[in-house]
């Protein structure tokens, strides 16, 4: 396998696109990445799309708007990690030597969905019994609070931090500060999860152009190396010792660290799955940024703020940007690329050389979770 780099990334603003079609939204995300890479669509040899709710052949539907048809195209659905998975497929196809340049994009229109659609597949047993994603994460959160004595103020602190970071990011949907009291007093969604602990429903598209490293300098002076891109899926729930610790995120991260030859201390900036505020505290522990049970202390120490020891979700995270499922994973990768190229403006992590993107999600009866993707990027 040869080395592979990202030579361009792009994203639409995440928000509400009621009158824009899925194809057009995806095209805008992909065009932004093509422009960033400074390449022509005809250089693309393979396309992969990440999407959950859009239906058939999204890669083809978007690509035809770019003037691309007839080449190899793949469509992946992997819940919240759909974009991370699309990125992973193109990474591997280019690493294998089969293609030199590929396009990975994610696109999603969430704002037209009804709350009842934030659920597992129609035939899923737990889904039929009333499982929605806010409830799924509330059940995990309650065990987490109970096991480690994490306070609601510590959980709310994640929303406060990420919304603070969102104020620094032109791509964020929410650009206003909130307080711990506002988070805790907002409308109850699935107790103990209140509205301001939830990411907003959002439309958006993000894309990345992936190229063999030995050819990357033809197109850009600052390619970003893909040090690891790992996808794993949830194990049986009965094998899991404790709901308060995601073995899935942990095993995916450990494999990514192994592939990259790096550890948690080497990560300068991290974008992780904060669909609900408590997720972020648990992921600190599972990704190895602190010991199990120490997530509450880590947010209180402000070490995950911009300027801290391990800045997390300096983009504002899903809590500020919103969470267009298929797009989110590549949106995170775009943020890490901007950080490593020192193009992140007011939210720039000084001297960042290694960055991580993490997505996890999806529910299937009997399994811990659906899918997880961890990507580690490194400045060359």
């Amino acid at each position, binding site marked *: 396998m040869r080395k592979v780099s990202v030579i361009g990334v792009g994203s639409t603003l995440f928000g509400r696109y009621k009158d824009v079609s899925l194809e057009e939204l995806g095209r805008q995300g992909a065009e932004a990445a093509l422009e960033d890479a400074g390449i022509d669509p005809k250089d693309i040899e393979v396309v992969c799309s990440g999407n959950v709710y859009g239906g058939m052949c999204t890669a083809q539907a978007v690509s035809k708007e770019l003037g691309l048809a007839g080449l190899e195209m793949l469509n992946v659905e992997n819940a919240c990690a759909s974009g991370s998975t699309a990125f992973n497929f193109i990474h591997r196809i280019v690493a294998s030597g089969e293609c030199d340049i590929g396009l990975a994009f994610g696109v999603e229109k969430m704002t037209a969905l*009804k*709350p*009842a659609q934030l*659920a597992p597949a*129609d035939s899923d*047993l*737990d*889904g*039929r*019994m*009333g*499982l*929605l994603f*806010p*409830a799924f994460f*509330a*059940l*995990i959160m*309650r*065990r987490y609070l*109970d096991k480690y004595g994490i306070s609601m103020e510590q959980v709310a602190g994640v929303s406060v931090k990420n919304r603070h970071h969102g104020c620094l990011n032109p791509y964020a949907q929410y650009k206003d500060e909130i307080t711990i009291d506002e988070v805790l007093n907002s*409308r*109850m*969604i*699935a*107790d*103990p*999860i209140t509205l301001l602990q939830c990411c907003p429903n959002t439309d958006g598209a993000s894309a990345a152009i992936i190229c063999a490293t030995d050819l990357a300098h033809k197109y850009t002076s600052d390619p970003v190396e893909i040090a690891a891109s790992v996808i794993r899926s949830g194990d*049986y*729930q*009965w*094998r899991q010792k404790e*709901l308060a610790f995601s073995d899935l995120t942990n095993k995916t991260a450990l494999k990514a660290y192994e592939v990259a030859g790096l550890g948690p201390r080497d990560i300068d900036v991290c974008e992780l799955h904060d669909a609900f505020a408590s997720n972020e505290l648990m992921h600190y522990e599972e990704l190895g940024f602190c010991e199990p049970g120490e997530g509450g202390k880590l947010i209180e120490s402000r070490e995950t703020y911009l300027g801290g020891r391990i800045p997390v979700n300096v983009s504002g995270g899903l809590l500020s940007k919103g969470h267009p499922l298929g797009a989110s994973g590549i949106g995170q990768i775009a943020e890490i690329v901007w950080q490593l190229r020192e193009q992140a403006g007011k939210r720039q992590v000084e001297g960042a050389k290694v960055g991580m993107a993490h997505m996890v999600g999806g529910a299937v*009866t*009997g399994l811990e979770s659906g899918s997880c993707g961890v990507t580690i990027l490194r400045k060359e």
Partner: protein
Amino acid sequence: MREDMRKNLFDPGLFTEDTRALMLKGSRCPDCDKTFFPPRGRCPACLKSDLIPTPLSTRGTLYSYTTVNIPSKNFKPPYTVGYVELKNSKVRVFSQIRFKEDQTVNIGMPMKMVIGHLWDEPDGTKTTGYYFEPEGKR
């Protein structure tokens, strides 16, 4: 057990009955002695097929719970859901949790399974199935 209750079970394959009542049907692996729900064709631990259908205990403890304020396909808010860890088998079942207004629920609370009305289909059928409530509610 009233006949219409039995007739309108949302997935009859999930249930079994002894002489007295409907119970959840699990699959027990004769080799590694683990029990699973919903029933399976192959043991996910040792991969043996030919698992033995086994009635599961109707008693358990509440593992986690949440009251949901947004509608799902089959339930109008507010409704409470949770995981119940069943006695003996330790199988964890996701279910609706029902309790009286003046009752509070807690992790570790003893629960029992009830067969009753779950939701109405668009054609008006009153679909039945399992839910859990705190022991000693009635």
